[in-house]
């Protein structure tokens, strides 16, 4: 049993403490916007915020996430208004298949919190998510657009 706070709500989740946070979010809490891509913290499709920091949830154990503030893509929009990164993604028509984009958006939202006007170099260093459709050109444009809102 673990106690998880996700998007401001607290859940008692009946899982073993060594369950990856990703699977507790997807299967026990039922929020499927956080995606499974590799399970070894390589691809970033499962990125969530843990106490405001972008983390790959497949590599975070439920026991380590307990008591922390977890935000998933479903909790990124505040008071019904889309986050500026989500808006920029729509304005720039970024997603193709879209599967990696929720993780990408979470990673970018964390970057902009730390560096509100990131340079291309900042983006290169902070955004290491895999996208097989190849949306990187639009991702970069949309990050700059979101930073300039």
């Amino acid at each position, binding site marked *: 049993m673990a106690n998880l706070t996700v998007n401001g709500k607290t859940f008692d989740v009946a899982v073993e403490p060594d369950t990856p946070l990703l699977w507790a979010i997807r299967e026990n809490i039922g929020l499927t916007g956080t*995606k499974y891509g590799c*399970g070894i913290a*390589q691809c970033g499709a499962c990125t969530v915020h843990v106490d405001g920091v972008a983390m790959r949830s497949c590599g975070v154990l439920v026991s380590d996430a307990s008591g922390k503030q977890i935000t998933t893509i479903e909790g990124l929009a505040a008071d019904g208004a889309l986050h500026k990164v989500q808006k920029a993604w729509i304005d720039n028509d970024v997603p193709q298949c879209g*599967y990696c984009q929720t993780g990408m958006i979470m990673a970018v939202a964390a970057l902009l919190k730390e560096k509100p006007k990131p340079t291309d170099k900042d*983006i290169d260093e902070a955004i290491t998510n895999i996208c*097989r459709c190849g*949306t*990187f050109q639009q991702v970069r444009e949309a990050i700059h657009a979101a930073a300039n809102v």
Partner: protein
Amino acid sequence: MNHMPTLNRRAFVIGSAALGTGLAIGLDIPFGGPTVVRAADGSPEVNAWVVIRPDDTVVIRIARSEMGQGTLTGLAQLVAEELECNWMNVTTEYPTPGQNVARKRAWGDFSTGGSRGIRTSQEYVRKGGATARMMLIQAAANEWKVPASECTAANSVITHTPSGRTTTYGKVVEAAARLEPPTDVKLKDPKDWKLVGKGVKRLDTADKVTGKMTYGIDVKLPGMLNAAIKDCPVFGGKLKSFDEAKVMDLKGVKKVVRVGDSAVAVVADTWWHAKTALEALPIVWDEGDNAKVSSASIAKWLEEGLDPTQPAFIGNQNGDAKAAVASAAKKFEAVYNYPYQNHAAMEPLNATALYTADKCEVWCGTQNGEAAFAAVLEASGLPANKCDVHKQILGGGFGRRGQTDYVRQAVAIAKQMPGTPIKLLWSREEDMQHGKYHPITQCKLTGAFDADNNLTALQVRLSGQSIQFSLRPEALVNGMDPAAFQGLSASGDAAIGYSVPNLLVEHSMRNPHVPPGYWRGVNINHNAIYLECFMDELAHSVGQDPVEFRRKLMTKHPKHLAVLNAVAEKIGWDKPAPQGVYRGIAQHMGYASYVAGAAEISVIDGNKIKVHRIVAATDPGYVVNPAQIERQVSGSFVYGLSALFYGGCTVKDGRIEQTNFDTYNSMRISEMPKVESIIMPSGGFWGGVGEPTICIAAPAVLNAYFAATGKRIRSVPLRDQDISFA
């Protein structure tokens, strides 16, 4: 988008998976004439493609699968163009394959591959839109008792021009749906298109940025259990035994089942529990003889196929290349190779199946709804009227989801637990090791020159795997796989762009046990490297500029030449590159489109490549959505450059060695060049855009690498040549 139309008309009982051909497409007349076919919400269908709700919402049916390539939006544009509806009120839905069969293939082909989504259905979907428009106008005219010829339609509003009276589609749709469809339907002249050709935004973005979009992996059904699967790691091997007693007590485990003759699955309450138990399950495999195969043994076998005394199929020839090479003033020769590659779509393969004694339904992402449907019939043993497939948005496909192995497995598991929905999800490791890989090939090329350095002969001898041999044997012609010559053929959708007086293109077919598949770009990925890098080699061997050298051979191929010239001009081929920057160029044809690309790179320490800039030109004949073409083109360089730098699956003990993205990497944003896309439609034909430009990524960069270092790389991936991104 994820709503399936449920039709109130009873499905017609058919005896088998009558996936027939040759039936009229898209204009099926509802049986019994005026009987109105209704969508799930009761709104009437004007025809198979168009449903209009009373509030003027237009629901456009899309038969092809959306996997990121934008085909859903493009097809909707084509229907809407002819329908003259308000684009702001357009939404889309997928008919199910079961409905397609029950309605005698009203929506035609569901298969989504080969960059065909738009080009092979554009005509009948436009007719679907035009037919619906004519019926809506006729219904308004009937109500007003005026000739239809006096009425026009725009933005879902019908106007009687002489009187100025107006009505909307939503108001006349009930009457329109009762009319007989017109038989004489004229499509607009492309010059009159208003919506087609416009870079409108995709229709499926909003849910993709909020996490609401449901992919196959996200399907939830009441009482559903989850399955994790392991197939024999050696292709062709069998499952001997497993000791389920060792895992039945583990948390959440419900059942351990044999799947076919080569796989075992654990079914549990959650997938995490299923996967954990599967890893703990003792399994004995019968690996068979294939366990002796390695990358080295495959390479040796393919190398033997380069020997001209070995049998080979001839794919293209003119003149007498062998004689011309024998009598040449000078000749030049090179051997290239291309590896196995995994599709590695971001969403691992999955399917959810619910089997009962009299029904089998599957929810999954598939590139071929009808093939998935046929797989459900076969795996369940139930007839077509008792099966269906509910297509989900795909988290990438790239050709892998055109196959149905994962669908069959899900049904095979569900069949052992009747009444319980089972979601089968492959781990990334399973996905990486049980792909349908980009085929492995080698190629020996020989060029011959006369004393004036004119190219007199070209021999291209391919040796290696045929995809069709494995997946579509019916497409072989007397044993030969015509698709193996993609981009090297004399004519057709993938014709060679050079005229050489003596030409011989051959394929020594050798099919190792590793299963091949259609991998975004398919055979042009390697054929373009072979031909375009070798053209570069030939040009340099006689001291000629690679673009000038090509131009002399392309005078009879004006469309190939036009895209080459376009990229040469935009990259500034005739002007010096910036200090330390080197250029390479390539052109090719595939999927009926003409493409060319030029790269600007720097090389650090001889083995670290920074790709600064790519210029890519595409002539797809007609353009439906230029913004989406730009995205397909820039994305294609991520796929193509990932393949060049990282894409290699090696074989050891009969199995694939790479297991995840740590050993099979994919490029990141820091490695992404700036891609400048030139879209230059010349009209008169319809070409695809999802795949063609992938194939020019590698040769453009490899040719630039030669320009920078004087070193010729003839083997992919660069990972294995100790070359990386800078």
